[in-house]
């Protein structure tokens, strides 16, 4: 069981941000916090870990009160049984991988360190210093170190954002394995929709310090009425006239698309405008992308 209600005003250069959050969960489903940067996601994790003191509220994890402004309780980070994987590098540069992993353990247990080294596929790097590790290896050590702390609450602040998709998938599986095997409360901050869909059982959509939406990933992201309509947003790069047609060039994600539009529509648009492009008449073709980058079997048409 995890419950918290937190209030905090952050003074910023441009404007103040007031964080106002209330959440509780009985079971241990993995929770993802999602939202634009500056919404208060990292501050939420820092308040839960005890690194930032809220203005008021309470935090309770598995029946133990970590923070309660009314009763004057505020446990130090070291008393909270938290595993924290930071967004920035936080491995201790002067210690080896093995020493980093064992740093937060309450009792010496070389066996447990060996087990985790094996689980993280880092068996041969136990004696290496962090400076000699790749980004993915470092993130795995950070995760292992947090796990060996034997936390009640695991906090992951966009730990996978800097990794390529292959590594990301492996680490996501590791997070999920640890989360299930060790019976943890896990809170993940992520921007990546596929990641959120693959990992989380619950999602909080945070905006301007407040919860805008909360629920299962399906209900938060896929709640629009189902239709076969293909729709995406983009930005107009250019508008040109070719013979009797008007053509607009739109950048959607990383793809440049040319679309024919009517004369009136062309006159109403200008370069830089945000537009929605949708198709309603035809069922789209869906092709799986295979490993070698060529189109695979078609699944519709």
């Amino acid at each position, binding site marked *: 069981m995890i419950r918290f209600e937190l209030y905090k005003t952050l003074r910023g250069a441009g404007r103040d941000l007031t964080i106002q959050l209330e959440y509780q969960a009985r079971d241990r489903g993995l929770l993802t916090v999602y939202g634009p940067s500056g919404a208060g996601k990292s501050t939420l994790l820092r308040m839960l*870990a*005890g*690194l930032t003191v809220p203005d008021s509220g309470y935090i309770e994890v598995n029946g133990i009160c970590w923070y309660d402004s009314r009763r004057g309780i505020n446990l*130090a*980070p*070291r008393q*909270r049984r*938290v*595993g*924290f994987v*930071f967004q*920035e*590098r*936080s*491995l*201790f*540069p*002067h210690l080896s991988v093995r020493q980093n992993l064992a*740093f*937060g353990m*309450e009792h010496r247990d070389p066996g447990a360190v060996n087990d985790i080294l094996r689980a993280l596929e880092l068996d041969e790097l136990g004696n290496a210093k962090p*400076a*000699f590790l790749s980004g993915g290896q470092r993130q795995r050590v950070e995760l292992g*170190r947090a796990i060996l*702390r034997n936390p009640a609450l695991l906090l992951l602040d966009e730990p996978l954002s800097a990794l390529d998709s292959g590594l990301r998938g492996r680490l996501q599986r590791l997070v999920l394995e640890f989360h299930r095997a060790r019976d943890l409360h896990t809170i993940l901050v992520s921007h990546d929709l596929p990641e959120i869909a693959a990992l989380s059982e619950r999602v909080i959509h945070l905006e301007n310090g407040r919860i805008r939406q909360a629920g299962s990933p399906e209900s938060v992201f896929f709640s629009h009425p189902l239709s076969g309509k293909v729709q995406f947003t983009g930005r107009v790069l250019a508008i040109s006239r070719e013979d009797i047609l008007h053509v607009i060039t739109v950048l959607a994600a990383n793809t440049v698309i040319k679309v024919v539009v009517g004369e009136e529509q062309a006159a109403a648009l200008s370069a830089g405008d945000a537009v929605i492009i949708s198709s309603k008449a035809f069922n789209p073709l869906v092709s799986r992308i295979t490993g070698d980058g060529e189109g695979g079997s078609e699944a519709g048409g």
Partner: protein
Amino acid sequence: MIDPGPLWLTLKLALVTTLILLGLGIPLASWLAYRRTRWKAVAEVFVSMPLVLPPSVIGFYLLLAFSPTTGLGRFLENSLGLRLAFSFPGLVIASVLYSLPFMVHPLQSGFASLPPQLREASYVLGKTRWQTLWRVLLPNMKPALLSGTVLSFAHTIGEFGVVLMIGGNIPGQTRVASIAIFDEVESMNYHSANLYALILFAVSFLILLVTYLVNHRITLLRQP
């Protein structure tokens, strides 16, 4: 030949001063680097004052403070049995104050340049402030520790004005090498003065050379 006494006394003074400064400078520098209070600016000014004040000013006020004619001096002498003016312990106190910025400034920038998440990771991993200081922060700021130690040591060796003001020139007690040089010159013993000066020059040169070489090595070792 010259009397080696002043040289040994100089080394002893520099060693004792540096050790005390390490004990004092580490907590003070970490406080200055991490705390945000309105008192921080005042503390920083006090730490830096010896850099801008003439040594004679510090020496003069210390002499007043240590003198049995003032309240503090009387308290020290009557209650604690300490007579600090014109004594080695008095010299140590003066040197600690005078070399304070040379220890605190490198340490403070050492603390400030460590990424904050190292400290936070250590706290979250169950360590106290002291454990974090010893096991995470200090091991990762060896160049700053070395700079602070060496600069304090070398600066104490080179001290003159403060020592002259509060220490006088008592052989075996307060007659350090820099005072001995002045004394020999006053007595027209240029040869002896030259020997003292040469030895101080060589010692200071070697200490700084070793520091820069070691610091260079530490920096190189950190890069893969």
